[in-house]
């Protein structure tokens, strides 16, 4: 029996407190990690990503068959071969990143189905091995290893830049052709990797001149505090200077910041002509609500290269979103025959109440089609032959119009449209610019001339 219950009670309480402090610390780290993943829709920290993964948990296989189809002649595509061609996908279908991953995974399935419906590739059907990386960096490593072991023809994978930099070396090593179909900070130069996503220079060369001309020269930049935000903010500076504008204020926000009261005041202090938002992720969505709640959005408009990526225009009420100007290659509202067909196919597959077909979904669609067309044109699944075909400057007419692969940089020359968020949780597209080149990547990266280059360039 305890001699002094109050002393043991106090000791117990102290013990509880110690534990609680440890828990709080853990919770904080966890929140910091997940929310940094969370936010990385358009790419994240590139360094140190690879060492995150010594996971032993294999990513969940959602659509693999147990049939072993690993005949060697698959690679050479003998004419009599009717076995399906196995292809891979690795995306965050669950967890906080699924605001980006869900439309991408849906686009993957739709693209495979469409290619199969048109007769497949080399006369063979595609069979998808789709893994879910669960918004977990470790799952990416495990998933990539699993895909390499599956003997696939191509892999389309990765959402955050951290995930891409973790899996890209694995696919390089295995000589497994890799497509990264996401808007990101730019600069990846790797012969085995093809990027269909838009890069900052493509959005900025359209958005910043428009903002300066139509709203005024003084810009205030609000950016997520990681490499996408940092690099994009530099590009804003550069394009503003080149077009007679200036950046009068610049703030960077850790990805779990959800309170922007001070920022709203500081923007009012600086009274710029426009705010350039490079904010990313669920927590940062709060900025738009709080900016609108203070009534500042009526006086100082927002332009953005990230708003809408996580369907912000849906998640926020219309009054907070209305009037925000964005620049992307694809919008569900694009008024073209090709897009009407694409949207109809999407809605008949996933229901007409689908929240929004995101820009990311379109890159996935194009990535798969460019690959399928290149293989058909090359007449073989041989990696070098397919890369050579892709580098020859292939084009694809998709829902957003014509996109052309820039052979030297392995990035897309694509249209970029300006749009204004409207009151019905969507966008009104008001101007489209065709054939916008990835200027920075073209400057620094020529994989035809020097195929051994393998790095990510930064401005």
């Amino acid at each position, binding site marked *: 029996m305890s001699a002094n219950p109050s002393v043991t009670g106090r000791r117990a309480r102290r013990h509880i407190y110690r534990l609680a402090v440890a828990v709080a610390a853990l919770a904080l780290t966890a929140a910091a990690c997940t929310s940094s993943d969370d936010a990385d829709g358009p790419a994240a920290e590139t360094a140190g990503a690879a060492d995150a993964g010594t996971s032993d948990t294999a990513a969940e296989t959602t659509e693999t068959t147990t049939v072993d189809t690993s005949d060697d002649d698959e690679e050479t595509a003998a004419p009599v071969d009717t076995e399906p061609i196995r292809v891979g996908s690795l995306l965050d279908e669950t967890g906080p990143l699924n605001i980006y991953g869900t439309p991408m995974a849906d686009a993957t399935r739709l693209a495979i189905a469409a290619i199969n419906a048109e007769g497949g590739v080399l006369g063979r059907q595609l069979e998808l091995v789709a893994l879910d990386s669960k918004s977990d960096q470790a799952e990416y490593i495990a998933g990539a290893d699993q895909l390499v072991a599956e003997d696939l023809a191509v892999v389309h994978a990765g959402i955050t830049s951290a995930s891409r930099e973790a899996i890209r070396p694995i696919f390089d090593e295995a000589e497994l052709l890799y497509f990264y179909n996401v808007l990101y900070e730019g600069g990846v130069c790797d012969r085995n990797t093809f990027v269909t996503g838009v890069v900052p220079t493509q959005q900025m060369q359209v958005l910043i001149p428009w903002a300066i001309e139509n709203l005024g020269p003084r810009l205030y930049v609000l950016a997520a505090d990681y490499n996408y935000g940092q690099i994009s903010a530099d590009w804003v500076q550069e394009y503003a200077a080149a077009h007679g504008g200036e950046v009068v204020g610049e703030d960077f926000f850790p990805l779990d910041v959800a309170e922007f009261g001070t920022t709203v005041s*500081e923007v009012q202090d600086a009274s710029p002509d426009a705010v350039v938002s490079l904010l990313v992720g669920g927590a940062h969505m709060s900025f738009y609500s*709080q900016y609108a709640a*203070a009534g500042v959005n009526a006086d100082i408009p927002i332009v953005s290269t990230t708003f809408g990526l996580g369907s912000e225009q*849906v*998640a926020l009420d219309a009054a907070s979103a209305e009037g925000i100007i964005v620049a992307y290659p694809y919008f569900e509202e694009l008024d073209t025959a090709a897009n009407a067909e694409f949207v109809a196919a999407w809605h008949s597959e996933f229901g007409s109440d689908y929240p929004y077909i995101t820009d990311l979904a379109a890159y996935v669609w194009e990535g798969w089609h460019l690959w399928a067309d290149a293989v058909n044109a090359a007449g073989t699944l041989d990696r070098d032959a397919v890369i050579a075909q892709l580098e020859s400057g292939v084009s694809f007419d998709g829902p957003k119009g014509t996109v052309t692969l820039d052979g030297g940089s392995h990035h897309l020359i694509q249209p970029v449209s300006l749009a204004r968020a409207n009151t019905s949780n969507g966008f009104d597209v008001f101007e489209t610019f065709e054939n916008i080149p990835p200027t920075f990547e073209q400057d620094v990266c020529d994989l035809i001339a020097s195929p051994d280059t393998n790095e990510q360039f930064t401005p």
Partner: protein
Amino acid sequence: MSADRLFNLGFDLATTISILALVSIGLAITFGMRGIINLAHGEFIMLGAFATLTGVRQGLNIWLAMALSAAIVGVFGIVVERLLIRWLYARLVDTMLATWGLSLVMVQVVENVYGSVTEGIAVPVGDFSVGAYSMSSYNLVLMASAVGGVVVTYVVMRRTRYGLHARASVQSPTMAESLGVNTSRINMWTFGFGAALAGAAGALLAPLVGVIPTMGQTFVARSFMTVIVGGPAFVAGPVSASGLLGFVENVSTNQFTPVIGQAMLLIAAIVILRFMPQGLTGRRSLR
């Protein structure tokens, strides 16, 4: 500094503190009273936000929807306590594991029902100007609600029979039971009350943040830090900690950058806990 800027600074500061107090007071009750580390606290906040969203979409008046949301989350808390928590009192690590599991289930269920992105709701009141600054009137609602939440908690815990029994059950469960207090029932109400306060916080934040299934994560770390720094007193703790941490974060964000603001917040918490390991109210016993 001009008068309008000064007012604006004070207004921002009061908003930050109010939000901290709102998101942490529910946790302070379950933790301070029962020693339950509820890792699903953020998801209770999320549930409150989704309940409000649903209510408004069904055509309810937004204030009514918010009040209902708090009640709904409170009832949900009672159910959770009966099914899960009550088997685990005094088993700290087990409650953490159980509530963490619960948080995962809640996120996934809400996502299956609403999808990963769902339509948000509008801020129900307008804005006002002081000098050169335009500010949200809704922040006044937040401040009033934070004060209201604190007062309600104080009154319930200090001025009602339930509060007396609840405190007795904490201080000396055996003695309380032998005097006829049904401590098991009291624990149920305490957890429900904490959950209702979390639900109210979520309801109030719904118009100001992106309401998505994973939003709980944004708040849970902050609430925990506030509660730990505050210490065991369930009213004085969160109030003093919100005030102190809110002040540090707000002023350093304002003077420097948001990154330094976040860093200073953590540094302040670490320094306080180094010298006051049981929090700001650690030396005061529960009475």
